[in-house]
């Protein structure tokens, strides 16, 4: 391992060799034994590590954790649709009484219209005038 490589690993992983990739640890220790510069680089990285260790650790108390958990659970419960609803709670999609009343009213109005002649009804006698009829065969020819 060269000093340049060693410096790169130190600036990447810090001074703790246990956090370096396992395959290069042996070479790194070997260089440390031989090189004062490598030892200086590692001491320098250790100072940075020491400072980073003094960064505040976020205080995640059990209460705080529980509070967030409860909020998540509540939101999920709001979103969840119950699988089955008791018949006495559920509203049927079609309510029978209003629907039947509406259909009866429409039928009655239709009957009145027919019997009182309010609407023009087509004649029931067949017409023999075929002048306007055009028969098209399935082959598309006009007869």
């Amino acid at each position, binding site marked *: 391992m060269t000093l340049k490589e060693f410096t*790169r690993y130190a*600036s*990447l992983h*810090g001074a703790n060799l246990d*956090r370096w990739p396992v395959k290069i640890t042996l070479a790194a220790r070997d260089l440390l034994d031989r090189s004062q510069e490598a030892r200086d680089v590692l001491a320098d990285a250790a*100072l*940075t590590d*020491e*400072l*980073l260790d*003094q*960064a*505040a*650790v*976020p205080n*995640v108390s059990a209460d*705080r*954790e529980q*509070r*967030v*958990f409860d*909020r*998540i*659970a509540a*939101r*999920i419960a709001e*979103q*969840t649709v119950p699988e089955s609803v008791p018949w006495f709670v559920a509203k049927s999609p079609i309510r029978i009484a209003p629907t039947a009343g509406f259909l009866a009213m429409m039928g009655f109005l239709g009957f009145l219209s027919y019997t009182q002649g309010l609407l023009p009804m087509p004649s029931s006698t067949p017409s023999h005038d075929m002048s306007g009829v055009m028969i098209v065969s399935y082959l598309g020819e006009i007869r």
Partner: protein
Amino acid sequence: MADAAAGDSKAFGILTRRHLRRSIALAQRVSGNASDAEEIVQDAFLQIWANADRWRGDGTRFTTWLYRIVVNRSIDYRRRRTFAPLDAADEIADPAWSAETLVDGRKIGAEVDAAIAALPERQRAALSLCYHEEMTCAEASEVLQVSVSAMESLLVRARRVVRARLQPLIRQKDGARP
């Protein structure tokens, strides 16, 4: 996770409890705000629940998916508060600290926090994932969706910038050593 993906809310509850603490800590480190961190994590877990059926489990770790959402949301929240780190950064490189002040661990901790807070967001996320969450560069690169080499560059730059900002402290520490 497979049970949660099938809509089992009880299984999802267990999963949430298992990862909640670390997620809040990560969100707080990246966003720099405790109350934002709670909202971020809440939203992240709800997003996972809503999209749980998309979970394929094809080698991708659940934590990678979770942390990716947490980090991205934290960065979004952070962008809304862009004024905060700049205010803090003004106090960092003050060479006129007295020895008494430097001895005060809380003061040093605050300076370190400010130096980390002043980092660009992806460098800060890289530092949080690799240093504080002790993830490998490969794992962290999956979270940030960058190559391993890009992740290494982010981490090296983050450490270098923090170090440069805290140079007065380091000099002081060096001088204090026998």
